[in-house]
């Protein structure tokens, strides 16, 4: 993205923020974002601990209950109820709990069982490899083409600056396969084929990782497709197997949609290796800010997407608890407005639509950089504070409690 100006969605042009900002501004931005981080981090305590523990308890109760209901899966209503419950449980476990715990968002609690070093999630991908490819590579070199393997996951062309190869013609088709079997895609993605090809990763490590994927995959398969179906008896075996398979697919499609909406909508910027090397704190924050996109929605939607609908806040502050992103959003917007930066967001259908359009268009050679979001401006009626949020973080902070209150 070395172009000096970019087209914006309102038909104007805007200077590329990375080129426009002065050294002083970059430094000030870095300080402001950091101060916001420290403020929230210092405030973490009992309330947050109660939140994550309640969600974990809720997930376990829901999962256990759904599995029990599915023992009678040969009866239609039980099948529907159990499958819905299990799908939801898997989504909550993977997104609001697993992803965020493995990010270290709850490490401050010093609880050995809610900690990035010990957590493993209910999906095919083993924890340790994911923590490398995601926490480290993706979150450090976000959207740096060639470095961040999440830009198209090494199998798709999602930005025109990626070189075209004929196999990309098939990407609209394998994209659909990837949606359905996303967990297996993530598991294999961690191997990093590039690093294996170039010999950067020692063979012994590749073997260990393959073994660990095999072990994890086997356990997952035994649980969902053998052990629980057996518990349903001879009559229920097939229907429980189908229920578990469905729940896994639902979770895969949903997490794939949310994750793709985080980085592949049109508004999102990608960066050259050179831009990625700018190691000033403020530049890193700006890259995180414009390299991600949010999805608008209500608190239930945010919860079911593990607050990854606050992808912008997540990328700015991957180590802060996800339950705090909602209260961070208006504060982040204030910084955007102050420095004329975009705040990428949109409704789910629009964001998802753009992603699919891009995947289809870029299967073919060429393609243009799509229009970017204009500099963020708070809606006029809000008088300086932003987008329906009161400027005071405390008000938003009660969000977590509201979500908790809605659980049985």
């Amino acid at each position, binding site marked *: 993205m070395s172009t000096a100006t970019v087209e914006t969605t309102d038909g104007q042009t805007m200077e590329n923020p990375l080129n426009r900002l002065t050294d002083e501004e970059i430094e000030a931005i870095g300080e402001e974002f950091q101060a916001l981080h420290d403020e929230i981090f210092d405030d973490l305590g009992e309330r947050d*601990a109660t939140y994550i523990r309640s969600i974990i308890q809720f997930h376990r109760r829901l999962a256990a209950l759904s*599995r029990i209901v599915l023992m009678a899966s040969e009866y239609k209503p039980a099948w529907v109820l159990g499958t819905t419950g299990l799908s939801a449980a898997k989504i909550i476990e993977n997104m609001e709990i697993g992803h965020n715990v493995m990010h270290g968002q709850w490490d401050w609690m*010093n609880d*050995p069982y809610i900690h990035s070093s010990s957590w493993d999630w*209910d999906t095919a991908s083993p924890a340790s490899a994911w923590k*490398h490819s995601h926490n480290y590579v993706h979150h450090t070199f976000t959207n740096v083409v060639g470095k961040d393997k999440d830009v198209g996951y090494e199998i798709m062309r999602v930005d025109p600056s990626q070189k075209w190869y004929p196999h990309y013609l098939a990407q609209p088709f394998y994209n659909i396969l990837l949606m359905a079997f996303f967990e297996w895609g993530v598991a294999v993605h961690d191997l990093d084929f590039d690093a294996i090809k170039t010999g950067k990763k020692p063979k*012994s*490590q590749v073997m260990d990782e393959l073994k660990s994927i095999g072990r994890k995959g086997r356990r*997952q398969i035994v*649980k969902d497709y053998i052990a629980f179906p057996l518990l349903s008896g001879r009559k229920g075996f097939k229907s429980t197997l189908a229920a578990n398979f469905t729940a896994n697919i639902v979770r895969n499609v949903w997490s794939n949609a949310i994750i793709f909406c985080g980085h592949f909508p049109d508004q999102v910027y990608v960066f050259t290796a050179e831009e990625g090397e700018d190691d000033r704190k403020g530049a890193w924050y700006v890259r995180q800010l414009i390299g991600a996109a949010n999805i608008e929605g209500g608190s239930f939607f945010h919860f079911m997407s593990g607050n990854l609908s606050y992808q912008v806040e997540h990328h700015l502050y991957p180590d802060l608890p996800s339950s705090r992103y909602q209260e961070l959003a208006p504060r982040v917007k204030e910084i955007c407005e102050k420095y004329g930066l975009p705040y990428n967001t949109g409704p789910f259908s629009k964001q998802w639509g753009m992603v699919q359009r891009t995947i289809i268009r870029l299967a073919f050679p060429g393609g243009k950089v799509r229009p970017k979001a204009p500099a963020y401006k708070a809606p006029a009626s809000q008088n300086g504070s932003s987008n329906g949020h009161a400027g005071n973080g405390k008000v938003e902070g009660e969000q977590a409690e509201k979500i908790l209150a809605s659980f049985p």
Partner: protein
Amino acid sequence: MVEQGATPRVSKARRRALKMAKSLTTPLLPDDYIELMNPMWTTRELRGEIVEVRPETEDASTIVIRPATRWLGHWPGQYLRIGVEINGRRHWRAYSLTSDPNHPDGLISITIKHVAEGKLSPYFTRHAEVGSMVYLGGVEGEFRIPYPRPEKLLFISAGSGVTPIWSMVRNLAQDDALRDAKHIHSCRDADDFIFGSTLRDLRDQERGYELEERHTKTDERITPKEIDEMVPDWRDRQAFLSGPPEMLEGMKEHWEAEGDPELLRLERFQPVIGGDGAGGGEGGTVRFRVTDVEGESDGSIPILECGENAGAKLPFGCRMGICHTCVGKLAEGQVRDLRTGEVHGEPGETIRTCVNAPEGHVEIEL
């Protein structure tokens, strides 16, 4: 891995059943679900419930705890790592056990003096309530009476440092083994003596136990020189020292200069790395697989520092091998324990990176 409680002792059958059920709960453990019913039922880490908070002096209290599973005992004088949660965070400290190892109801206790600026001590002395849950770590410590028991003993304590010594003296008295023990204790005044009344009673009853009190409110704290006058045969006695670091250091120097350091044991709660005859090794290289960095050690630099020197952000805690915060899974290679000089390591073993140095090439899942 973060520091966690000790592994509770449960029957083999129960362990086997849990292991089998794991194929249903993976990647969680059956315990994760069992815990929903009662957090004390977990077999992953030992927990306990506070059953009594008993004031000992104006600012010291004994916390009596019922462990979730049968207490496996300890040696009088040893300490326990105990964890509590304060404002959403779990904190760990080591405290000397003050309970009888063979308590008829299987209860254990620690005795804590209020330190206003401390984190855990105010919790225990001011906020802890009956019914609160605590996490029980391992019992550790070499501060105990060796077997066969020496005839002549000398105890020197100050302030709350009396707690491990109290445990030893009581145990000796129970076993009728107080033959020739001298105890010198310093505290602010007569009322400030934790376990003072019991120890005074013991002095009056037992001929083999002499107790001398030094009250720092009116008098100077005991100095190494005075030991010569108070206990002329101190060089022949197995000595136990427990108190503030300044006192320990002064006395230790005295023993090294004029006595037999072999006969001296200190309770300092701080193992010294490379202290007791630990030899440095050859060193080697470490590859941190998750962080993707490589570090190097000359044999004296622990794995944790190898990584930090190479720019990696790694978990750490006490940096002296107590808390287990820094542990990582060893994928390949062997390590040398910098405290003991022992070389160990098998693939899959979790090792404390703060007190182990690589011995050759090491790969670690961190």
